[in-house]
């Protein structure tokens, strides 16, 4: 996947194929931000990436703020949706998660606390098109 990369998928199956392609290039220490409206499929994309690594219990961390998964890789799955400010994020140990070089970090609704995001990150923008169609854009920031 040469970045920046943009692609349109027709349905969930297309998203799954894209997620597997993405998973194959995933590296420890990467921070991935997923941006997109409610129902755009942020959690679904992560679910399919993690499935590639044998983790089948991914669900939305909107309430829990962060889910942790460990098998072939270790992943922290954040959702900033419910957070009020950066203080709350730091107070639940944000630095510790961020400094774990052995883990991959996914963040849904990262734009809500933009100032907490590391400079080096990959952002995925998901746009809802007609029906089940979605546009995915991958952009690297360094």
């Amino acid at each position, binding site marked *: 996947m040469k970045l920046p990369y943009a692609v349109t998928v027709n349905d969930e199956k297309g998203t799954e194929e894209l997620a597997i392609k993405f998973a194959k290039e995933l590296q420890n220490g990467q921070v991935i931000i997923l941006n997109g*409206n*409610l*129902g755009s499929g942020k*959690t*679904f994309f992560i*679910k399919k990436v993690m499935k590639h690594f044998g*983790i*089948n*219990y991914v*669900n*939305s961390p*909107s*309430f*829990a*703020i*962060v*889910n*942790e*998964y460990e098998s072939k890789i270790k992943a922290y799955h954040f959702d900033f949706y*419910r*957070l*009020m*400010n950066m*203080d*709350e994020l730091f*107070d*639940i*140990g944000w630095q510790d998660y961020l400094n774990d070089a052995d883990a991959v970090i996914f963040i849904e609704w990262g734009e809500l606390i933009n100032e907490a995001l590391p400079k080096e990150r990959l952002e995925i923008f998901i746009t809802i098109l007609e029906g089940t169609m979605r546009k995915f854009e991958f952009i690297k920031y360094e």
Partner: protein
Amino acid sequence: MIVLGIESSCDETSAAILSGNNILSNLISSQDFHADYGGVVPELSSRAHLQIIKPLVDKALKESNLNCADIDLITATAGPGLIGALLVGLTYAKGLAFSLNKPFIAVNHIEGHIFSGFLMEDKPEFPLLTLVVSGGHTLLLYVKSFMEIQQLGTTVDDATGEAFDKVSKMLSFGYPGGPKIQNASKIGDEDKIKFPVAVLKKPYNFSFSGLKTSVLRYIQKNFSNVNDIPEKEKNDIAASFQKAVVIALMQNTERALHNYDVKSISLVGGVAANAKLRNEITILSKKYGKKIIIPSLEFCGDNAAMIALRGKSLFESGRQDSLNAKPYPSLGENYFHTS
């Protein structure tokens, strides 16, 4: 036996004292310690737990007319939840157990909810079918005894409470969504829009992500701007959405009633506060001639009384945990037996 329970898995800090099956005290930070401490503390925070925990435990003991030395068993939530938050309650409890030289039990938060019906005067009877509905979880469980819990189904994406929160946000009602959707539903027409109920391969699993998306599509299709939705329409959407959620939950519950030998049904967790859900599951239980136990509102949300009670039943079954017990963030895939 005097049992101290401590809960700090997410937003709430809670401390409770049980004497046998009697609840002497059950204090919850958001209700009992609203602005008692100085400074601005984020709502969701390990620091807030840290500041509140000792005064809360002290207050619970005082309310119960007891001293630390009177405690026979110390219990605390070890997971699932936020590690930073869990650490506070768990570490405090372990420290207390060590200093008082009392036995300690690390309790699973979901197990606390599962048996919360036993906090009521009228107790559930085994085998028990339990529906756990909260912000982070949605589970259907077949509970044969205090030690035999079988998971029939779980959500494959969003939890029930989360679906409420997100639809509430779409309708710009705000957070938390549960009470807001419920209030709007009271005046809305629940038959106005037919939102889909997910059909899944595994008959007891739940999915609310598709429902969330279809509410979003409905809004986008019919209104150019979220701020343009008339109040009446918002209420109708809320009511129709709530109905779809309740149907999904009740369908699987009814299916389980057909296939499992059940004496009583229990509805637990934060979303068990929803009036329509309480009402519909009560109707279902009557239809099948089963006893129904739904905890009072105080015991639906996160509370330490349920942790103390669960800790006590584990202790009585012979378990005792080491003071090395660690917090854990997730339930994982196979925490409960699935067959």
